[in-house]
């Protein structure tokens, strides 16, 4: 289980390699939500999502022998780019297993950073292939169930404590739970009174189901918020969620798409549904906020193609 110290150490380690993204005070969304609303703009991070933070923290720990061997990773989304980019910067070969149906923009971006891509027919095939590499002694990076990933992600929490010291609430989306775990560890370690709210979408609600069942529940993701589509959350993430979260709000895809449009049209930023769902959740949670609270929405990424934006809007009127 990671601790605040691990996050602080991660910050020193990854500092030269990742961006410190802006936390933007949005007057528009503050008015809309009736509170003080801030946006942590991780779509401005290198590769367009927060993933490099964890990827660098993990890959900087590799021994020289490990580095020469190169790493294997599996991902249908942002983690692929995070690992590929870190590999390019650190001169470590990366081999990434991705499902065939991964959107073209993700495949191209990942290849653009110099990763070797292996396409497989399904999510299960991806897990099986990863397991095969592990059996054969290769270093296989888990996209979220890894303490170094979580600690790297937690550096967002450290930045928020500096950027918004008056912070009272943080809203963060949950895929496998790596982002939430890091941020919760950092923030609760520094200011326990801050409330942390988890968000998922319908069809990508492994955490909500796991909290309900009080054990790890496996799901088949169907949400359009593909980057939230982890088949299960990490055990540590579940433990931290039980300990730290006020709750998990599950929003329908439709509301995540509406929120994406609001952010695009009123804030002029492109957020992917895995990020915009935090605004949808904030709407549902608005009675918990109000003029005296300072609420940060962690916008985890903006890796959505224009075509996808158009089709989502069309399919979710």
């Amino acid at each position: 289980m990671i601790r605040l110290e691990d996050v602080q150490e991660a910050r020193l380690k990854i500092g030269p390699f990742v961006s410190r993204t802006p936390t933007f005070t949005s007057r528009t969304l503050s008015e809309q939500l009736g509170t003080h609303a801030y946006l942590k703009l991780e779509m401005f991070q290198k590769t367009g999502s927060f993933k490099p933070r964890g990827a660098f923290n993990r890959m900087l720990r590799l021994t020289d022998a490990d580095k020469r061997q190169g790493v294997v990773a599996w991902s249908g989304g942002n983690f692929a780019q995070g690992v590929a980019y870190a590999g390019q910067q650190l001169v470590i070969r990366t081999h990434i297993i991705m499902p065939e149906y991964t959107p073209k923009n993700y495949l191209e971006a990942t290849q653009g950073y110099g990763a070797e891509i292996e396409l497989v027919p399904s999510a299960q095939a991806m897990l099986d292939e990863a397991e095969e590499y592990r059996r054969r002694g290769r270093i296989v990076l888990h996209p979220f169930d890894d303490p170094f990933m979580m600690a790297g992600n937690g550096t967002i929490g450290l930045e928020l404590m500096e950027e918004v010291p008056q912070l009272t609430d943080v809203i963060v989306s949950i895929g496998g739970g790596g982002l939430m775990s890091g941020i919760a560890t950092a923030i609760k370690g520094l200011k326990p009174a801050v409330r942390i709210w988890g968000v998922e979408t319908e069809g990508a609600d492994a955490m909500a189901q796991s909290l309900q069942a009080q054990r790890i529940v496996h799901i088949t993701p169907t949400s359009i918020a593909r980057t939230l589509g982890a088949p299960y959350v990490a055990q540590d993430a579940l433990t931290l969620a039980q300990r730290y979260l006020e709750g998990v709000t599950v929003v329908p895809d439709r509301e995540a798409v509406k929120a994406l449009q609001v952010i695009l049209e009123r804030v002029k930023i492109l957020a992917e549904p895995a990020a915009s769902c935090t605004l949808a959740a904030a709407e549902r949670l608005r009675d918990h906020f109000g003029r005296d609270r300072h609420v940060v929405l962690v916008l985890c990424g903006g890796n959505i193609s224009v075509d996808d934006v158009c089709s989502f809007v069309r399919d979710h009127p």
Partner: protein
Amino acid sequence: MGSQGLSHAPLLLDDVYGARERIAGTVSRTPLLRFNVDETPARIFLKLENLQPIGSFKLRGATNAMALVDRRDLANGVWTASAGNMAQALAWVARRLNVPCTVVVPDHAPAVKLEAIRRLGAGITPVPFAQWVEIFRTRTFAGLSGLFVHPFSDRAVMAGNGTIALEILEELPDVDAVVIPYGGGGLACGIASVLRGLKPSIRIYAAEVETAAPLAASLAAGRPTEVRYTPSFVDGIGAPVVFPEMWELACQLLDGSIVVSLRDVAEAIRLLVERNRIVAEGAGAAPVGAALTGSTEGGTVVCIVSGGNIDPDKLAKILGGHLP
């Protein structure tokens, strides 16, 4: 079109520091972000004024202009002449202060823009274009007695705009050049006044679009010169003339004007969405197009992304690789 002998004394830094204090609770301090494209002619940064409420830097000038006036003197309301971002900016600020706002618009202004202004609570007065243009010169309109906020030729507005320069210098003190879209000149002159005062060696360029580049023509001729104006999807900048009182400031403060094509602007808009995940309107993307031509020479260049108010269908066309 005379200026009735109006002349703007150069802005004082104190005017801008004062503006900064006045606008602090209302206007956003916008991010300064690296342009996420490899192999560019310079290290390009983006000052994201498109993230302001109502999506434009104009909020800074509108807020400062209204804050300088006694509350009692606002009882008759405020008004401006604009169909675009200044109209929205003034309406937004006026609504926050509970002050009536009227916007005089040219009668061919797009319904979408008028709707945006109405939604912000302002009253709209449409007039024929020739009459509308006169307002920039006379600063009066029959029947309107409130405070007139000129969209650009106004010290308080320029001082508000100048606060952008303060933020840039604080965050990127080693900036070598700044590129600013030039329409009426209020943004360029406001920012340039501060930069010349605090970092005299900095290079400051205007960015114009080839379909209406009066500043470039005027600089080449050495005097205000009228050009032929062609309407385009870049509706935030582009006029047939440089206003005389702005010309005096502009030729003192600016190092030149970089003129870009509509294709350059469209390409910049596309790159800003795809690489930086932000939406810029034509005027806001023009400086990025200008920086990509290499005309700013090397070093660290900041582009003022002045606004993000572009019609969704025009944006869609551009992202699809076409010119609207």
